[in-house]
C-alpha cells in the first residue's frame, strides 16, 4: 500500500475512528445506565418484575451480538422501529452491554457486607441515606474492575457494527481495501491498530481502577 493511497483515505479513516469512539462511548453510557437501572429495580421486592428482568438479561446474554444487531436494524422496521445504521449500532451496543452491566452491578450490590449496612441502620440512617451513602459507593467501588474489563470488550465489539454498515473504522478500512485491492494490508493494519488500542485502553483502565479503589486496599499498616 503506497503512502499516497493512505494519505488519500486518511480523512475517511479518521472520520471512521470518530464514529468508532462515538458508538463505543454512547453505547457504553447507554448500557451502564440501563444496566444500573435493571440492577436497582432487581432489588425491589416484586417477584414478577424480577422474573422479567431475569429474562431480559438471559436473552441478551444468550444470543450473539450480531444477531441482536440484525434483529434491530433489519427487523426493526417491521415492528415500526426505523433507525439509521449508526443509531441501531449504538442502541444495539447499549442493549447488549446493559445485560452484562446489570450482572456486574448485581454482583456489586451482593458484595456489600451486611454488617456495614447494619452499622448504618444502628445509628438510625434512613433507607435513602443508607443506599446513597453506604450501599452504592461500596457496591460501585467493587465493580470498577469488571466495568473496565467490559468497556475494553465493548471497544472490540464496535467492529461488528461494520457488518450493518455503520461507517466506523473497520467499515472505512474495508471500503478502502475494496477500492484499492489491498485487503490483506488493510486488515493487517487493523489488527495491529486494535491490538495497540486495546492494550492502551486496558492500561488506562487499570490506572483508573487503582485510583478509584485506593481506599479499598487492605493491608493494615500497623
Amino acid at each position, binding site marked *: 500500500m503506497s503512502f499516497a493511497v493512505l494519505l488519500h483515505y486518511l480523512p475517511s479513516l479518521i472520520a471512521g475512528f470518530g464514529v468508532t469512539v462515538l458508538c463505543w462511548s454512547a453505547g457504553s453510557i447507554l448500557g451502564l445506565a440501563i444496566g444500573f437501572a435493571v440492577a436497582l429495580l432487581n432489588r425491589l421486592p416484586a417477584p414478577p418484575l424480577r422474573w422479567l428482568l431475569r429474562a431480559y438479561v438471559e436473552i441478551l446474554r444468550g*444470543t*450473539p451480538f450480531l*444477531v441482536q444487531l*440484525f434483529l434491530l436494524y*433489519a427487523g426493526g422496521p417491521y415492528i415500526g422501529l426505523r433507525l439509521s445504521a449508526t443509531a441501531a449500532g449504538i442502541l444495539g451496543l447499549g442493549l447488549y452491554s446493559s445485560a452484562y452491566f446489570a450482572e456486574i452491578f448485581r454482583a456489586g450490590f451482593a458484595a456489600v457486607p451486611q454488617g456495614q449496612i447494619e452499622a448504618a441502620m444502628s445509628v438510625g440512617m434512613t433507607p435513602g441515606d443508607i443506599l446513597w451513602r453506604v450501599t452504592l459507593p461500596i457496591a460501585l467501588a467493587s465493580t470498577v474492575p469488571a466495568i473496565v474489563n467490559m468497556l475494553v470488550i465493548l471497544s*472490540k465489539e464496535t467492529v461488528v457494527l461494520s457488518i450493518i454498515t455503520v461507517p466506523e473504522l473497520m467499515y472505512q478500512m474495508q471500503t478502502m481495501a475494496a477500492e484499492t485491492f489491498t485487503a490483506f494490508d488493510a486488515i493487517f493494519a*487493523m489488527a495491529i491498530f*486494535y491490538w495497540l488500542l486495546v492494550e492502551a485502553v486496558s492500561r488506562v483502565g487499570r490506572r483508573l481502577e487503582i485510583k478509584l479503589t485506593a481506599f479499598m486496599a487492605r493491608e493494615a499498616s500497623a
Partner: protein
Amino acid sequence: MRFDIILHSLGYLLRAAAVTVALSLAGIALGFVIGALVCAARRSGDRFLRRLGGFYVSFFRGVPLLVQLLFIYYFLAEYGLDVPAVVAAIGGLGLASGAYQAEILRGALNATPAGQAEAATALGFAPFDIWRRILLPQALRIAAPPLINEFILLLKASSLVSVVGIAELTRVSMNIASMTYRPFEAYLAGGMIYLAINLCLAAFGAFAERRLAAGGST
C-alpha cells in the same frame, strides 16, 4: 408476525444450528490444545517462551475476532493457499479461544495451593506424579466451569464466521430473511435457537459445577 415462516424454515435452521455447534466444538477443542501449550509456555522456565506466551495471549485477546477471522481469510487468499472456508473459520475460532483458555488454565493452576505440592514433595512424590495425581485433577476441577462458559462465549462468537460465507445459524437466518423479506421473524428464530442452546449449556455447567464441588468435599 408470521410464525409460519419460522415453521417452514425450521428444518433449515436446525441443520444450521448443528453446523454452529460443530464449528464451536471444533474451535473449543483446537483452542484447548493451543491454550494448554500457551499456558505451558507461560509457566515454563524459559524466559523467551514465557514472553512468547504472553504475547500470544495479549495479541489474540486484543484483536477483535472479526478482524482475526478476516485476517486469516485474506492471508490465505494473499498467499494463494486453497483452504476450505470451514477450516479457516475453525482455525480462527481456535486461535482466539486458545488465548482465553490459556488464561483459564493458568488461573486454575495458580489457584491450586502451593502447599499441596510441597506436602506431596515432602512425602517423596516424583514431580510427574505430583502433576498427575495432585495438580492436574484439581486444576481441571477449577477450570471446568470457566471452560464451559468459554464454550458459550465461543458459540456466540461463531456467528461472526457468517461473514466468510459459512452456512451456520446466523448466515442461514440472513438467507431466510432475504428470501422471505421477513427479517424480524428470521432473526428472532435464529436468536431463540442460540438462546436455547446456551441455556442448555449453562444448565449443564451448573450441574457439572455442583457435581465437581460435591466431589471436592469428600
